[in-house]
């Protein structure tokens, strides 16, 4: 969350502060109880057999319970009787025999709130097991998926990657990844569609990613409706591993390109998380694209990060400070503000980009990505294209627990400048462009195509 700059000076008051703090507006590790099947806890349960004393288990439970109770932005705890939850679950914490037992009790507790950004973050020193944080996930086969039309569609294929070389293309249907054959896929009319679709994608990623050089068997249906089985060897993913406080490691991906289309040059920037290592390449990319006819910020697949970065990146598109939204907490509030970026990486004075701007989102765009997209949309500075975002937008922080784990817990609610709450709702695109198998097979990326068309229409 929070972000950090400000004063730090010796004075009669001692040392004065650092403002504004960054709050980890993190990737939606838990979308309420729904995510327990796929997110952090699903991983944590596999490393749960370390013994724990009843005393530590109870202290851990109590710390988590009180940290949330004291900082939750809603004194009414989203309508949940927090004291009753404590009294109900404390006996189970007391009986916990392993670290995993107490994690499950805490996860059940936070699940009662039914909100994003509540999750147990297992200690990094926990034994490495399949799916645990330290598992080697540097390797991949170069494809991404989305759940649509009751099936898992290949939504993008990395050019020249293992899947690409094997002939896989967007619009193919993924039937099986390793031993995992997705079934009971959520229907688009399911109120929990976005979270469940996201969870399926996470499960598939858990099979696609792994050690470099290992093989993964995929069963797919190609564009001609033929079933194809492929043995693909994982290669180095185009990501860099980074840490941020107590949060699980992030595998950051950044790419920028200039697209030539009908005499126009349009910049496209895509990044996977809002963390500092992205800032420098993004600044340089924007600098290269200042003379372009339009720009696209592709936030599909971007699960969030440090919310303060939204202010700096938004500043590339404003000449004045403009509010992007308000984070309301129990003990105060912050306004996210676009901070005009008037100097480039070389220390030269520049003008922020004033041309047409598109933001691409879908249900994998969460947290800080929603703060940014919702704020830019409300400010009238960006045309949002794609599908409704996750709706997991609560700014959060972490708190250490006595057993060595940490708990991620939401501190605030976020409201856009035009008064919209995004939690549970998401950012609704100005121009909805649903992904379908037919559209993916036809154009590769119908949402990007829509973005290019819109920018062309603004000439």
């Amino acid at each position: 969350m929070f972000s950090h700059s400000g004063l730090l000076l010796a004075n009669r008051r001692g040392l004065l502060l650092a403002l504004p703090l960054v709050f980890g507006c993190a990737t939606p590790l838990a979308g309420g109880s729904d995510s327990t099947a796929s997110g952090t806890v699903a991983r944590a349960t596999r490393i749960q057999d370390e013994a724990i004393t009843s005393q530590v288990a109870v202290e851990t439970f109590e710390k988590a319970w009180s940290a949330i109770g004291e900082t939750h932005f809603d004194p009414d705890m989203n309508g949940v009787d927090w004291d009753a939850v404590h009294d109900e679950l404390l006996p189970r914490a007391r009986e916990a025999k392993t670290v995993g037992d107490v994690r499950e009790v805490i996860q059940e507790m936070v699940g009662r709130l039914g909100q994003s950004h509540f999750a147990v973050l297992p200690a990094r020193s926990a034994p490495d097991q399949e799916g645990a944080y330290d598992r080697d996930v540097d390797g991949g086969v170069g494809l991404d998926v989305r759940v649509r039309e009751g099936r898992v569609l290949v939504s993008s294929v990395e050019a020249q990657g293992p899947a690409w070389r094997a002939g896989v293309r967007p619009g193919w249907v993924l039937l099986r990844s390793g031993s995992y054959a997705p079934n009971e896929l959520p229907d688009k009319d399911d109120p929990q569609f976005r979270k469940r679709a996201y969870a399926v994608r996470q499960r598939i990623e858990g099979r696609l990613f792994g050690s470099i050089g290992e093989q993964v068997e995929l069963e797919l249906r190609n564009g001609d409706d033929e079933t194809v089985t492929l043995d693909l060897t994982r290669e180095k993913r185009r990501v860099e591993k980074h840490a941020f406080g107590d949060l699980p490691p992030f595998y950051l991906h950044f790419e920028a390109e200039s697209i030539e289309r009908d005499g126009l040059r349009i910049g496209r920037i895509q990044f996977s998380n809002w963390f500092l290592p992205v800032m420098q390449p993004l600044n340089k990319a924007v600098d290269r694209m200042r003379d372009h006819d339009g720009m696209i910020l592709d936030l599909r697949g971007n699960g969030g990060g440090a919310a303060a970065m939204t202010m700096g990146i938004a500043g590339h598109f404003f000449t004045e400070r403009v509010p992007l939204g308000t984070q309301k907490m129990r003990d105060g509030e912050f306004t996210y503000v676009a901070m005009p970026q008037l100097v480039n990486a070389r220390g030269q004075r520049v003008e922020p980009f004033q041309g047409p701007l598109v933001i691409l989102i879908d249900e994998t765009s969460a947290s800080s990505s929603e703060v940014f997209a919702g704020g830019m949309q409300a400010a009238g500075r960006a045309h949002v294209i794609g599908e409704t975002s996750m709706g997991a937008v609560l700014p959060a922080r972490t708190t250490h627990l006595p057993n060595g784990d940490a708990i991620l817990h939401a501190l605030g609610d976020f409201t856009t400048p035009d008064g919209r709450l995004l939690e549970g709702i998401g950012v609704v695109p100005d121009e909805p462009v649903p992904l379908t198998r037919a559209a993916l097979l036809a154009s590769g990326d119908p949402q990007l195509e829509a973005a290019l068309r819109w920018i062309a229409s603004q000439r």
Partner: protein
Amino acid sequence: MKSKRTRILLFSLLVGTTLVAPPSARQETAAAVSASKAVELPAAKKLIERYFELTNAKALGQTKSKRLAGKIEIVGMGIEGKFESLSASPSLSRTKMDLGAMGETLQGYDGKVAWMVNPMMGASLMEGKELLPLRVEGTYDKVGALHELYESMKTVGRETFEGKDCYKVETVMRPLEGMDAEATKKVRTGYEFYDAETGLMAGSMMTAASPMGDIEVTVVNTKYETFGDYLIPTKTLQKMPGANMAITIESLEIDTVDPSVFALPAAIQALLEVEPAKAQ
């Protein structure tokens, strides 16, 4: 503690009763006691001068420069780093804060220009009410400049602050030239808490102007230590909405700072060359 609780009780009783009926004779007595106690509050000037004496702040203000360094931590979030705060007479300051994954932030003031370079938010000038505290904190000899920096200081009560019996002093910074004094009263006003027993400042409360709005901040000085001839708060906890920051000073050097370190960064010079960004 007991006598203080009694005072609070008396005050509450007095206020409550006054709202509904004329004070009785007993209440008049209570009012007299309260007034008498109020008179007993030491003057702010006396408290502040004592603090300056205890810390040798006047002598510190007569040196040419100082360098403070130490570590910082966002409490309970696994984010730690280090800082270096350089300052020199008359009004030069530059602070570097490196918070690892959150990057390195620079902030400075040269008596006229206050600036910040933040890796996530870019380079910016701090103007208007954001400049106010920097002007005060950037003044090297605050003891000598106290009356130029503040328009008023008065003791407004005696209360418990972070478990300590303290005198509460209200301070009001002078507005900047052209500034709407009334509209900025809130961010110009702070409260300092002086330990009634030791005379040391236990902490302070203020409303800090930032790009993200006005933010309530409480600073708690948890430990004082002597560095050479000076006594300074070496452990400080800054409480802000949503997060606390712990600051530990590990070293203090006097008159070792090279003045060239206060030169404006290229990014700030670039901002000043053309029309400066307007602070809200």
